[in-house]
């Protein structure tokens, strides 16, 4: 199934990131939306694309969660509070995730066979030198951003 972010965030629908990637009442980040969120609009098929058909028939109707691949999934020992970064520090989603929200297609999910995580974590370039400022989600990037913003760091801030 292909997902088109641009259709959702473009002029026709005008949705913002946090309409699907929500924050809960207690400030925690829900991350990838559940099928219930999709069902709010797609309880019946909108349009006739193959992806729409798959969405409705295979997931919405049987109320089955979509096994999304997450390009930015961090190791379990890394704790990242979206609320602190998005709500408090007012960092735009694009600063870390790039222009993902305006893409027409999802990039191919490539897994690192050794680490088991998405290749996007290291960055597509094996040298580790990003082609774009938002590429890569390694710790050095966290540290650099914190240093630029004069935030004090402690191991247990992120590694609980």
């Amino acid at each position: 199934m292909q997902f088109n972010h641009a259709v959702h965030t473009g002029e026709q629908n005008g949705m913002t990131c946090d309409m699907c990637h929500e924050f809960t009442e207690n400030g925690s980040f829900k991350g990838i939306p559940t099928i219930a969120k999709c069902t709010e609009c797609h309880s019946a098929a909108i349009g006739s694309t193959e992806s729409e058909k798959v969405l409705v028939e295979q997931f919405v109707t049987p109320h089955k969660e979509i096994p999304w691949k997450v390009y930015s999934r961090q190791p379990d020992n890394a704790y990242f509070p979206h609320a602190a970064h998005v709500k408090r520090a007012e960092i735009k989603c694009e600063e870390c995730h790039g222009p993902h929200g305006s893409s027409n297609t999802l990039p191919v999910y490539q897994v690192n066979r050794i680490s088991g995580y998405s290749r996007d974590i290291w960055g597509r370039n094996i040298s580790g030198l990003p082609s774009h400022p938002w590429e890569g989600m390694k710790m050095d990037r966290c540290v650099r951003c914190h240093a630029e913003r004069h935030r004090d760091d402690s191991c247990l801030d992120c590694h609980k």
Partner: protein
Amino acid sequence: MQNATETTAVLIAISEREKRPMNITRRELLTFAGGSILGALFTPIPWKLLDDSAIWTQNWSLIPRLPRGPETFTFTGCTLCPGGCAVKARRVNGHPVSLVGVAGHSLSNGILCPMGIAGHHLAYHPLRLRRPFAFTGKGADSPLVPSTLDEIASNLAPMLKDIRSSSSKGTIAVLDQRPGRVLSDLYRKFVSNFPGGIYAVAPGSEDPTLTTLRALCNTTEGTLGYDLENTRVILSFGAPLVDGWSTPGRTVKLLQNRNQNGLKLIQVEGVQSRTALQADTWLPIMPGTEAALALAIGGVIVRQNLFPAKIEKTSPDFHTYKTLVSKFEPEDVAAVCGIPSSVISETAHALASNPSVVMSGYDPAGGPLDSATETVIAGLNVLLGNIGRTGGISLHPPIPSPGATTSPAVGLAQVPDHSVRLLLIDGAESGHTYPLSLLKRKLTADGGTVVMLSPYLSSRSALADYLVPSPAAFESLEEISTPPGARRSSFALSLPLLKQPDTTVDPATLLAKLAGASGLPSVGAETVESCLRQRAHDIWLSKRGTLATPTGSSQTPVMAMASEEELWKGLSEGGWWVDNMQDKQVNPRLTLLGLMTPDRYDKASAPALDTTGTLKLIPFGWRNATMTASVAPVLSKLFQESHLRSLGGRVHINPSTLAANALSDGAYVKISTHSGNMTAQAVADPSVIPGVIHAIVGPSPNNTASKDRPEAEGILGLCAVRDDGSWRITEATIAKA
């Protein structure tokens, strides 16, 4: 011709060399390998491999993984201390991942302390007991060997039968760390089957002022509580009101709203504690002179006729009290306790002209003040007419309970010395600690036998002969009964969030096992759940109170409920029952001094100390943080990195006292008392008044490695325990270690 010959020779030589295989020398090989390695370091390959391999090691199958799945929320209650705060647990795939307070909850007001926030981690504590153990001897180095519940019961059977037949020199006692639960009733029933059986409550499990007032009121019925919501002046002798007193959310909310409710807090304490910092007035008192201050305040009230007229008639010992306080002039007391006489007078006037409450502090590690001091502090409430008054101290009906319990509750200090042959220590925690010597002297001369229910191996385990693993917090169905000092009786359930290991033992199961071993019939309910259902049944039968939903959005009177199942269902969903019965009438004949004779106060005005001589050693702690095992290791950040909380093994001393003893900040000092000595790190702390060693009985969150032997008792081992069970102040000296 010659040139042609030479040219031919060279060509032949080249041809011959080309025919030979290429020779790679060892040097060339090593040079190539070294160059390759060096060159590879300038490519991303080794660094990327290193990074990937590091992450790969986090993905081994034996490493626990965070669950993924649907997110749900459960309302429950925290049982780490008697405060019983409401908890909202976020669960992923049924597994609790975060705990927060419940906004809108009428009792805890959305506040949850750091201990509660990390409460679900404690089940995984490195010192967790996962099966019964037995110590093979009484010595400190006696090994801990695995055992079973049946083995323990059969080992204890002869002793239990012996005690039942009255042929034993000692008796059986149960030490309840959190009285007032349905389990407490079960313990009382159990010990009542044995001649002289004792049901004792642990130090710190009850409010000291209210316990003393109960004796002054000479009443056994009802429960005393503070009507703080209508109080205008609180005089606190060290009560940690904003730092873990009763249900923290209650007092924190009151003090946050003091601009609206007009509440004034006067904190009397020898250190500028968190409560003292937030008080309207901090009275830095020389520890040990609290009785003198209370009597001086009482003297001002009596001399200036600031008390209700009826007190003179209703208090049989009013004139004795009047004579006693006449000896405590503010000017004289000011020189001793360090509080100006004008402030003493102002405090007396503030108390007398407003709805007020006077309370003492039960430090989680320092324990209560001595009984004589507690009496005159509680007596101020009697003198001011605070008992039974709005904004004072009320006597409210207890939680409905069906049967009378046959064994009365006594404080641990009141248990006769060397009278207990078999001691059973309850697994719940009061959040307070006490010197083991207080417990040891209650045991028979041979050291007695101690069976300890506990989720963890702790410093207290050193005293045990048998360790029985009880469920950790949030692992089993428990109750949250009325917190100490609460205005109304309340009841809720603490619903489990984690699966209880099969090897843990429900306290009711242990009692049933011991009853069987001693030839007794069953003591009642077989499980904790059946006990709790019985309590819900009793509440429903009484038709008292209302059941609030967890978030306080709606309330249903019990009277309007169709069946007891409806009440149980509401409680099982995190609901909270609060009583609405009217207060009971207090016995009008209240005494001011109780059984205390005036001569007990002859030495109340102790002289100020010389800071170079004997100092006052005062242990202090933060509720629930006085033992290693009570603190989730993840809170090491709180204690070690941020220094928001003090760690054990440190003593806070005023810089002038340190200088007078030729010591400096951070130096290791040897503290000596009559009970022994130990080394600790000194912290120069101007918030501690001179002449005092403020010794932290705190946790060591990282000290979790040893499962072989319980950790040493530490500073509490140096404290002198008095006959009344108090250990607040001990004479001590310090020197460079």
